[in-house]
């Protein structure tokens, strides 16, 4: 029997199989410049990680027995970067076949084997907000992930306890589909009407179920269960944070008015290129903005843009983050933060907050990540050179105290699964078009449908 167990063990090792529970690590990072974000920058400081949590921050800490020590002398330690808008690690992005698909969720399509996860880690990113695309007005629920690369089980990457979030979309993307098909919405007015109608439908749905439940009578036929309406009800009840694809100031203002009418408070505008025009209004509502540093003019509604957006929003008191929306940009979000500093003269700390604590607040995970504080998760990145310098180099990235990226021991091929029928050339050539996925799957076409009669 022993022998059989041993041989099974050998097989498991040979197949690279590890147990499917999220790991936590212990590590002592010595003598670095620790950028805490929430409590200043501490020179020559140690960070002790026990069991995946930051247990102590201080000077001259000793490593408990068996805990690895990393010398960070002359290096910078900062909280792991959080990308509030990403489409990596998902096998589908849009269920764009109907205008309101609140019931679908990116949690069902997580691909833990996407090598983009490793690329993001190599840029110091530790968490992403895997978002549904912007093909429809109320898209799908998003999924907040920790980049625990190495497991093939999607459950291992989930940010346990993170609040639910959902994607809305305004403007050209959802109306493009409407116009192409001759249905609502064909204009920004139609988008607003659809949101209002959907939320009103959800109120009616809730009323029907409340009545049924209050009667406590199993001799009554239950109303039809509708996962779409259930989800919209959860938005109305504040259980789901809304992240809305938007560009123009007028549509941003419109959605705040709608949400005021329905009493929905938790709202982040994604992209929000014209958010600077309504910064005081955003601050008053308490809405957040997650934007690009200097990317615009890729379609008409994105022409009126400025690289001062982040600085204007920040100085008006709007919680702002810089996101990637791209498998390429995600590797250098620290540069994107630095651009905002160049244009808007934000302080080092405010600039780095754009990619750490601010996105954490927008995702409702700031009690766990986004800054270096005792008791928080040990999601950390170590840089050679200040992370806002163009010469900075990411060296190591930790999630829950486990090192997932180390420049010194970086293997050439980081894929977790290799298709035996894949073409070597396809692996080597990086297709830049794959990196912008916001409208992926919006035009439904699979191999099978090529052979269909239409």
């Amino acid at each position, binding site marked *: 029997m022993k022998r*059989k167990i041993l041989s*099974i063990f050998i*097989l*498991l090792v040979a*197949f690279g*199989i590890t*147990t*499917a529970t999220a790991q936590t690590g212990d590590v002592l990072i010595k003598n670095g410049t620790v950028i805490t974000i929430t409590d200043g920058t501490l020179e020559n400081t140690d960070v002790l990680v026990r069991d995946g949590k930051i247990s102590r921050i201080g000077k001259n800490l000793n490593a408990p027995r068996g805990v690895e020590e990393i010398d960070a002398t002359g290096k910078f330690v900062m909280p792991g970067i959080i990308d509030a808008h990403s489409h990596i690690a998902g*096998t*589908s992005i*849009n*269920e764009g*076949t*109907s*205008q309101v*698909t609140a*019931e*679908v*969720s990116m949690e*069902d*399509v997580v691909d833990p*084997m996407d090598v983009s996860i490793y690329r993001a880690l190599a840029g110091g990113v530790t968490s992403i907000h895997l978002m*549904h695309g912007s093909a429809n007005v109320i898209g*799908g629920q998003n999924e907040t992930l920790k980049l625990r690369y190495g497991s*093939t*089980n*999607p459950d291992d990457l989930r940010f346990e306890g993170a609040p639910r979030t959902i994607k809305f979309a305004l403007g050209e993307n959802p109306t493009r589909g409407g116009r192409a*098909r001759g*249905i609502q919405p064909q204009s920004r007015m139609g988008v607003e009407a659809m949101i209002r109608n959907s939320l009103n439908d959800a109120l009616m749905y809730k009323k029907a179920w409340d009545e049924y439940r209050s009667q406590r009578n*199993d*001799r009554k*036929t*239950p109303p*039809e*269960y*509708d*996962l*779409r309406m259930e989800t919209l009800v959860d938005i109305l009840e504040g259980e789901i944070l809304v992240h809305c694809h938007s560009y123009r100031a007028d549509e941003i203002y419109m959605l705040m008015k709608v949400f005021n009418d329905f009493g929905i408070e938790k709202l982040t505008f994604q992209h929000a290129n014209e958010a600077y025009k309504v910064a005081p209004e955003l601050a008053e509502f308490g809405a957040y903005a997650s934007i690009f540093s200097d990317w615009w003019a890729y379609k008409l509604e994105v022409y009126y843009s400025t690289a001062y957006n982040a600085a204007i929003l920040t100085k008006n008191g709007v919680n702002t983050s810089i996101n990637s929306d791209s498998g390429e940009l995600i590797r250098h979000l620290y540069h994107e933060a630095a651009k905002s500093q160049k244009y808007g003269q934000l302080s080092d700390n405010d600039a780095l907050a754009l990619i750490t604590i601010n996105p954490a607040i927008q995702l409702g995970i700031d009690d766990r990540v986004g800054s270096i504080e005792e008791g928080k998760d040990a999601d950390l990145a170590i840089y050679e050179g200040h992370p806002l310098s163009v010469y900075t180099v990411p060296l190591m990235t930790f999630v829950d105290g486990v090192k997932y990226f180390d420049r010194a021991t970086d293997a050439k*091929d980081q894929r977790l*699964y*290799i*298709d*035996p*029928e*894949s073409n*070597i050339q396809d*692996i*080597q050539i990086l297709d830049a078009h794959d990196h912008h996925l916001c409208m992926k*799957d919006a035009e*439904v*076409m*699979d*191999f*099978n*449908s*090529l*052979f*269909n*009669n*239409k």
Partner: protein
Amino acid sequence: MKLQRELVFGLSLVLLLISGSTSASAQSDPTGESSPTRTYAITNATIVQSPGEVIEGGSIVFKNGMILGVGTNVSIPGDAQVIDGTDLFVYPGFIDGMSYTGAKRPEQMERPDNLFTPNPPNDYAGITPERTVIEQIEVGDNSISNLRKVGFTVSHSVPYGRMLPGSGSILLLSDADHADQMILMSNVSMYTQFSGAPGAYPGNTLGIMAKWRNLYINARNQNQYAQVYSKNPTGLERPTQDRVLQAFYPVVEKEKPVFYNANSLLEAQRALRLMNELDFELVLGNLEDGWHMVDLLKESNAKVFMSLDLPDEPKDSDDEDKTDEVAELEKLRMESYKNHLAQFGLFDSLGITFGFSTIDASASKIKSNLTMIVEAGLSEDAALAALTTNAAKLLGIETITGSLESGKIANAVISTGPYFEKDSNVKMVFVDGHKYDFEIKEKGAGGSVDAASESTLLGSWSYVSTSPQGELTGKMIFEKEGDEITGLMTSDGGNPDQALSNISFVNGTLSFDYSFDGGGQSIEIVIVGDITGTDFDGEASVAQFNISFPITATKDAPNNN
């Protein structure tokens, strides 16, 4: 490979004879050799009763579709047709856990207007769990004889469709006049897959997962209410009469398992996710890459039918100038391929019971695939168990079939040597006591192209194919390298050249296949046709999508330079 091709050819002749000569009874025997009671005795054979249970020099008797006796001391009834089993191996008939065997893909329905709605018509959306595979069965369909020829006698067949095509039935792979005659057990499963409707909801995995939950929870609610109503309907609102939801009731009651076509690691994990959330009986079918999730499989106790479609062996580039990086990538790709083949042995060593599904496998490759799986570490007994006893248990038919025991259905495979050896051939298959003979030709020399007709084939051909994507043109080029005939398919549309495999040209019939990457999945195209002079007239078929289309070619004049 040549042998298998010839078997296909031989078998189609046999079938032609059978179907051509009879109408009232498909099994009538114009030679008068078989008895009306279907009594057969195979004597002095190596009989593998079940995996690991071998009788040397034994006899087995079939009568009226059942096994009458098996052993070394069996009395042979007087009316039995006696088959000398010397040098022959008798195995229980194989059982296919999930396939489209016998089913014909229905015509695509017209694309309705107004598809861009949350609730497109159910039949277009592919939500038709109330349908059954039996409606799609075509007796005498090639898929039945092709699968039987490699040893399968029973198939759990599922219907074609999209997300929820309908219920599966367990069929006997016999020639029948009517589908009902093939049914061993009807409507045993609810078949489902991650297959979205083109341009309509649910369009992909996102919508499919959500729709699944929505349907299931409504079915659970409505089922509960329907039971209350049925006890005392007076004064109550009538329950909804929704055939889709009603099809879910036995699933909700755990009387019927869900067969999920979960082809990949991610699909299988998604199916398990639904099972854990909603609590139904799950069978994973058609799993190709399961070695990363052995712990999940063990934990969940989900039943598994592994795909018998194996990846093609990767071919390393023979470019001498290739970089070290390319060489390293090739090495990793080869390791992955080997893991694919070795996973079956891994499953067995970890005690994960599995059967096989042929839904994506081309029948002509099944026997060689099984041989490769055994060579990669799965014991022959375990491979046989996956094909017989385990498959029977997973389908719940182990009391009637899956082993060669008295009283069980007369389903058996007779091969000319141990089945999992490369050189053995299936000589005969019994399904429900009906005998199917296969002509076995001796292996000739010089590959699968007749030396005499070589010159007819060799050279360049210009082809035209009317595929559903439109007209395709290009060249088929056949060359001789050493003793081997090689081939290449070029495309005027700019697609990469495709190397051809399994080239066979015998008695004027040319056949070959090739595969290409169709957006992440390997698509295999098989081309078969006849050459008359310098004209080729054939058909290209894609088994995965059950479609075929014409292809013709004309031989180019020899090149002068």
